[in-house]
């Protein structure tokens, strides 16, 4: 991620304290909005994987970025904000799921993918095969233990092992073992 709020903030000229405070605050707001534009979709997708509805996922995502605003305003660390955002999203999604009486949209995301998306391959036979393989893979994903699913989804979103470990609160070794295990299962499914 090339953009960091500090870079914006450090460019401010120190005017009077009041106007400066306003400037800093608006810079933080702008930074949060920019990060929201960059990461809203992946965060919503990740939150959806916890079985929440789109409405709930959007609400959780809003909460995440409001928390980010507070985080930046409180001068907390600005290193690896993407990892921070996913970590907060993970915790809030778990919390929201816990508060919901029943999760009825458990596989909303993957079911939607499997049903609505077709491979762009021009050959109908290949298209069917490809769709079948995708269904197999997503079916395997859905029966993995939750921690393995989270590791795999976060890796697919481009996060590094260290970031995943921090988000899930597990060791680096646990992440690599989880991904190897999941990959093994995916490979078995792929061969069927």
């Amino acid at each position, binding site marked *: 991620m090339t953009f960091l709020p500090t870079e914006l903030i450090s460019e401010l000229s120190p005017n009077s*304290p009041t106007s400066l405070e306003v400037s800093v605050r608006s810079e933080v707001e702008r930074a949060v*909005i920019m990060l929201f534009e960059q990461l809203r979709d992946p965060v919503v997708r990740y939150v959806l994987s916890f079985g929440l509805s*789109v409405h709930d996922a959007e609400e959780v995502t809003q909460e995440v970025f409001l928390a980010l605003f507070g985080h930046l*305003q409180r001068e907390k660390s600005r290193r690896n904000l993407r990892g921070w955002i996913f970590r907060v999203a993970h915790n809030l999604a778990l919390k929201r799921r*816990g508060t919901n009486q029943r999760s009825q949209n458990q596989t909303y995301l993957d079911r939607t993918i499997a049903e609505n998306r077709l491979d762009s391959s021009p050959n109908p036979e290949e298209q069917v095969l490809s769709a079948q393989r*995708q269904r197999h893979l997503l079916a395997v994903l859905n029966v993995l233990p939750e921690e393995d699913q989270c590791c795999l989804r976060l890796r697919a979103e481009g996060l590094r092992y260290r970031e995943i470990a921090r988000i899930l609160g597990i060791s680096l070794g646990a992440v*690599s073992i989880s991904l*190897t295990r999941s*990959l093994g299962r995916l490979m078995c499914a792929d061969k069927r």
Partner: protein
Amino acid sequence: MPNENVHLSDHELLLSADGELSRHRAAKVRAHLATCWACRARMAEIEGTIVDFARAYGNARNLKLPSVDGPRALLKAQLTELAAKSKVGSWLRFFWVGSTSRTAMYAGIALFLIVVVGKLALQHFVGPVENSTLGAIELGAVPDLNLTPGATRTVTINEICSMAHEDVVREVPAFLRKQILQEYRITNVRAEDYEIDYLITPGLGGAEDVHNLWPQPKFLTWNAHVKDTLEEHLHEMVCAGKLDLSTAQRDIATDWIAAYKKYFQTDRPLSERSDLAATEEKRYALLGQFLRAPMLRRPAAVKNVLLFP
């Protein structure tokens, strides 16, 4: 890879594919792959599966989510509202944007002032501690939301309301207690001065999880026992159907002191327990310990002490 003839494990191949090996190890793996067809074939299989999975998962990128425009507008409105509410001191901002050396200098002065004020307080045992000083001490009263954002478990209202008292106020296991103190870098203070407290109590569906635990100093006005009163009150309200469980969880996790004020309609704890309020001497002795603790050495805390004396 001590023996060049031993094949690489899937684990190692995956780490290699993901660029997670050390440079030295990655070089060895590359060298092995250059000579071993079996491992290269296995690597191709692994990468093929990753490609297939990434393609399947990648379709999510094209999944029709609602347009970002509405949520962005909503976020902007909420941020504006939030910014209007926040009262962050202008001077705090001055420190924020200042140069590193200037910040370091003022942080040093702040630390010096803390030590001087702490020593004076300890020597003279002056009257009751006023809110202004408490404002600084009370920094430990709420958890660091980075470390302790709160975590819940899946429970029903019936389960919560039929919990035995010992489950509602469950003791935190020793290993977790140690882990939390380490996370908060509290090493050179007496462990009994802190209670490892649940942010969301088990009686409200809180989980026994490091993300839901934090070390709460016992010598603050807003201490663990005050929080217990709130937890019991919220538990009763939830079980009486007067309060939604998710609201109770959210309120206590967001800012339990604000929740206390809200649900008890008061600005101060209703009753301060005598054993915790203690004598002024005890209080200042504990204050001295707390000032020496690493928690207050964090930059934000130092600035708060200086800027809001």
